[in-house]
Each structure stands twice: as C-alpha cells, then as structure tokens.
C-alpha cells in the first residue's frame, strides 16, 4: 500500500509533467504566425493522433500471442464500430455498439 505522503509525491510529480505537456505548446504557439509547412503539419495531427490511439488499443500483441482468438474479437468489434461510425457518426452509438459487440463476441468466440 502507498502511504499518503507517497501518494502526494506521486501526484505532484505527475501533475507537473502533465500540466507542462498540456499547456506549454498551446500557450507558446497560439496567436503566432507559423510557416505554412508547420500549419499543414498541425492540421494533420488529428488524423495521426486518432489513428495512433486506435492502433494502440487494437494492437495487443502480448494478448494475441497468448490467446489468438482475441484477434478476431478485437478486429471484428472494431469493424462493426467502423460501420456504425460511417452510418451514424454518433460517438454514443459507437461506444455502446463497440462494448456490446465486444462482450458478445468474447462470449461466443
């Protein structure tokens, strides 16, 4: 178990790093005229970040190695969510469908 002082030290250290990462680029860059190349690069961050987040969640190599059936569960669920996202564009429907299909496939596969 962590002591209250250990939790406090951990909290303070993590908070400093988190706040620096969350605020410094925004505070330093906002309102500045940036080169066209940099502005184009910034415009690509959403697609890059979302793709990286999805890949990070889907590519569970350790789990796949120990339980290959998880590949089917994870990617089939993701495929269904893609269809729902394309048709509805709703975050809520995607979240609910994703959890439902994932749970169902986890039971039957």
């Amino acid at each position, binding site marked *: 178990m962590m002591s209250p002082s250990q939790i406090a030290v951990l909290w303070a250290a993590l908070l400093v790093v988190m706040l620096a990462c969350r605020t410094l680029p925004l505070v330093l860059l906002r309102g500045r005229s940036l080169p066209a190349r940099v502005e184009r690069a910034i415009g690509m961050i959403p*697609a890059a970040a979302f793709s990286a987040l999805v890949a990070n969640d889907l590519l569970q190599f350790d789990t796949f190695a120990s339980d290959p059936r998880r590949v089917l569960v994870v990617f089939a669920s993701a495929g269904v969510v893609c269809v729902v996202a394309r048709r509805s564009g709703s975050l809520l429907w995607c979240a609910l469908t994703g959890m439902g299909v994932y749970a169902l496939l986890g039971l039957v596969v």
Partner: protein
Amino acid sequence: MDAQKMGQAMGLAAPVMLAYVSIGIPCGVMEAQVGFTPLTAFLFSGTYYSGAGQFMVPNLWMAGASLFSIVLSVSFVTTRQLLYSTAFAPYLAGEGRMRTLGFAALVTDETFGVNLDRYASGEGWDSTRAIVVNVACMLSWALANALGAALGSVVDMPIDVLSFGMTAIFICLLMGQPASRTTAVVAGCAAAGVALCKLLGWGGVSIFVGAVLGVVCGVLFEEGTGHDVA
C-alpha cells in the same frame, strides 16, 4: 452561456462521460487496492486526470516499481499531450491566457477528439463550450474514480469490455476525418509507427511516436506528390 449552447456541449460530452463512468469505477477500485481513499481518488482524478496514467499507477506499484520508475513510465505516456496542445493553438489564438490555461489543463484523449472535431468543422465552436465539455467529462471521471475507491473490491467489472468503449470513440473520430490520400497516408503511417514501437517494447511512447511519424509522412507525401497542397 445560453441553454442551447449548454445543451450542445453536454450532448457532445455525454458519450465520453458514459465511457468515463464505465472505466472510472474499475480504475478507482484498483487505486483503492494501493491505498487511495475516495477523497484522494477524486482529487487525483480531478487534477492529474488521465485514464491511461491512472491505470498504470496501481499496476506498476503492485508490480513492485519504485515511485521514480512510476513517474518516469507514466510521463512517457503523457507526451502525446504535447501534440494535442499544439493542435489547438490555431483555434485559441484570440483567447485570454487564463482561459487558455483553464481549457488546456483538462484536455484528454477523448475531449481532444470531440473538441477538435467541433473546432475543425467550422461551425463556430467556442472555448466556453469546449471548457464545459472538459469540466463535465473531468467531473464524471473524478466522481467515478471516487465511487470505485469507495466500493473497493466489492465489484468485479470486465475492464476490457468497458475500455473498448473508449476504443470505439477513437474509431468514430478517426472515421470522421476528411477522406483524402493524405489522411490515408497519415493514418497508415501513424498506425505502423505504433505497431513498430510496440514490437520494439516501446509501448510507453508508441502513441506519441506513431502520431509524429504520421504527421511527418503526411507532410512528405504532400510535398512529394502535390496532393492536397493548397
């Protein structure tokens, strides 16, 4: 702020809040196992406010990691916030410093996604609604963590199923990106970068490295082919 704008912000926050409650409770349960009280779980979650980071803390502690090692490992995961913060810079150019800081301090993977999606839509999204989204999501996360810490080991929740709700939100946001060759190159290279990092055992920085690789490849692709370059 009028009721209509508040409704828009809360409507956008609702799916994320649902996912946060689903994931926040098991996260609080794990935090309780390493000594967090409901109050410390609430304060930790409301200020540090990071799902991935907060799941890592109890896991690493129970695996015998030192405090220094935990801070270092979790900080690597935090680096992706640098990209999110950079992406918002063009949209908050006219805002005051305190408002900017207030907004930036509460950006997560999910609120980055929904707010940037609205800003990029060109439909007049503003910082007030963006902050409402951030605060509502933060409160749902912090309260869910406190509830989980209070419940302790009384509940047994399927964390993998619940966390897939987050994955589904990211998939929805990715599918909403403009369809172009550049987007395909950016997304493909980002995913490849993540895969490579994970195979090399650099999971802690995979999102940051993957996203940076995606952006670099996208810029090079545009400059090399002339696609999408204005």
